[in-house]
């Protein structure tokens, strides 16, 4: 009990990164993740780590690339507009297979948008906002505890698969303080014989991105990446279910939306509607088979997002036409409400009953 | 010596005190009252001493002070 600390999501994540052995953190300030930057500025010296407030997000992500290539555990964080600027390096690091952790504490967009939390960067995170055929693992916590726990895991996953891992959380999660038990280091270690550390007593290590010669090297490299992504897809299946066993109505949501959807499930059940929640805690790879399985005994599915419909595509791809998939979302910093979710479901129930097809 | 009247728009004032700190005649002070935005505001304790130097007006970030110059016309 006394282990609990009241911590901001942002700070819980930052401290967890230090626990995970992150010793290189580079970032540029942006609301609503400034606490991560301030925390690192203050606490990196404690662990003899490096903190640099970079001249830009582009530079911050490039510094991460340099430290990651050197074999260090490196991280950056930002919020939506800043993450867009990091897509360059993410594409490079995915291509060069460099492990690192990038946190996006999402705010409302597009453009400068607003500073309230949102989930409008799902596509960017799961489809790669950068160019080329790459993927990054995308973890999706829904509270401060998970922000801490997932961060520790993220570093291991990054090292295990030599790939960038994104922590995708909305600004509410970053700003909110909740009770947290700080995680322990996992103790896992990873050899990095590929790191550039000086070609002493061995051949050169080279971390390339340009693959021109011979002509098919780039294709082979892409095939190698795809093969790795397939491996990741087989291995990482992360999700939680809530009262789905007997559910007729399935809700699908992640992050803050999932918290709200979970509350809606309870209320709906109070009203006699058997609802359940499927919450992916990893967005890529998306737990598609598991969702399809879960949905197989449901009559309808409602995806709830703080966006105008992004994860809903993965939900549709997962169920592949087996059941109808509806969507309810609010964007630009607004939150879905329990009331709206319930109203929407009851509305459907009603229209089904009267054989009116809702559009 | 010029003679001026500092016209302070109390609703616009944020109570930063820059005018007060820069008045060479020390005739500006913070009122013991707040405006409708909840801010203390500046008042002039003795307009007759104002030399219309404009220092207060120049420094005011909220353009809350206008200076009126009194001129003898004959």
């Amino acid at each position, binding site marked *: 009990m006394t282990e609990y600390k009241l911590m901001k999501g942002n700070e819980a994540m930052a401290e967890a990164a230090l626990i995970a052995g992150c010793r290189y953190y580079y970032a540029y300030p942006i609301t609503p993740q400034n606490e991560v930057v301030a925390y690192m500025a203050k606490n990196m010296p404690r662990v003899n780590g490096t903190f640099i407030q970079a001249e830009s997000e582009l530079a911050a992500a490039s510094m991460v690339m340099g430290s990651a290539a050197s074999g260090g555990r490196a991280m950056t964080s930002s919020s939506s507009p800043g993450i867009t600027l990091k897509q360059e390096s993410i594409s490079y690091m995915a291509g060069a297979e460099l492990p690192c952790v990038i946190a996006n504490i999402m705010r409302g967009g597009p453009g400068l948008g607003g500073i309230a939390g949102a989930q409008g960067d799902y596509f960017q995170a799961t489809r790669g906002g950068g160019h080329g055929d790459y993927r990054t693992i995308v973890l999706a916590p829904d509270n401060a505890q998970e922000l801490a726990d997932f961060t520790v895991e993220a570093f291991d996953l990054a090292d295990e698969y030599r790939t960038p891992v994104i922590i995708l959380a909305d600004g509410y999660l970053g700003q909110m303080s909740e009770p947290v038990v700080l995680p322990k280091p996992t103790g896992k270690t990873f050899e990095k014989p590929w790191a550039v550390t000086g070609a002493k007593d061995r051949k050169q290590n080279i971390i390339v991105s340009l693959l021109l010669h011979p002509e098919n090297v780039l294709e082979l490299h892409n095939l190698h990446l795809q093969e790795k992504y397939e491996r990741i897809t087989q291995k990482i299946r992360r999700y939680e279910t809530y009262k789905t066993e007997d559910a007729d109505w399935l809700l699908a949501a992640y992050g803050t939306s999932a918290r709200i959807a979970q509350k809606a499930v309870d209320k709906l059940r109070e009203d006699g509607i058997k609802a359940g929640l499927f919450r992916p805690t990893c967005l890529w790879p998306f737990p598609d088979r598991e969702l399809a399985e879960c949905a197989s005994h449901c009559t309808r599915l409602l995806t709830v997002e703080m966006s105008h419909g992004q994860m809903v595509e993965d939900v549709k791809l997962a169920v592949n036409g087996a059941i109808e998939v509806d969507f309810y979302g609010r964007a630009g910093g607004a939150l879905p409400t329990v009331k709206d979710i319930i109203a929407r479901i009851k509305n459907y129930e009603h229209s089904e009953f009267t054989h009116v097809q809702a559009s | 010596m010029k003679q001026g009247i500092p016209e302070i728009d109390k609703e616009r004032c944020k109570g930063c005190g820059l005018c007060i700190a820069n008045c060479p005649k020390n005739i500006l002070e913070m009122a013991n009252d707040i405006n409708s935005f*909840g801010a203390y505001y500046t008042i002039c304790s003795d307009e007759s001493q104002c030399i219309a130097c404009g220092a207060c007006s120049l420094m005011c970030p909220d353009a809350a002070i206008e200076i009126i110059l009194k001129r003898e016309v004959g």
Partner: protein
Amino acid sequence: MNYPTEEIIIAGFGGQGILLAGRLLCVAAMRQGRQVSHIPSYGAEMRGGTANCSVVLSAERIASPVIDMATAVIALNGPSVAKFEPRVRPGGILIWNSSLCKKILPERTDIQSIAIPATELSLTEGTERAANMAAIGALMALKPKLMTENHFSAALDEVVSERNRRYNPVNLRIMQAGYEAALAIIKKN
């Protein structure tokens, strides 16, 4: 569990310890085994010197830290009364700092408006910075189930930085004064 969910907004200007007051409530409730969440207003909204935070205390998992209609609002200055009075749930509580709200007065009749001279109560101990404590004292009077004084004083020790911990006895006294002021009002009504 017989512990109703409380959704509390605390607002005032910068320097009044708004966020600290919110964290205090959270830590005290957390130590009593409650689920808690605390979220500040942030970013550009801070410009102009106002601050507010939202605190949710519950026996169950908290869905959203954002409060639509609050069970209680603490407003430590006039602009906060104006901004947050409309956000009190019908039947809810508004505790307002009558020391600083001379012009902007609460208007609603469907809520319980409690005027506490929080800044004055604080000044009796020689500081104007502990108005937040007086207001929290008042809240404890109005919501006796919220937390015990013991939990509160423990939370105070936990939340207040080491440097300032020596003021905690003063803080507790001001809180007590706020508590009593509120009790007096309730009894009068």
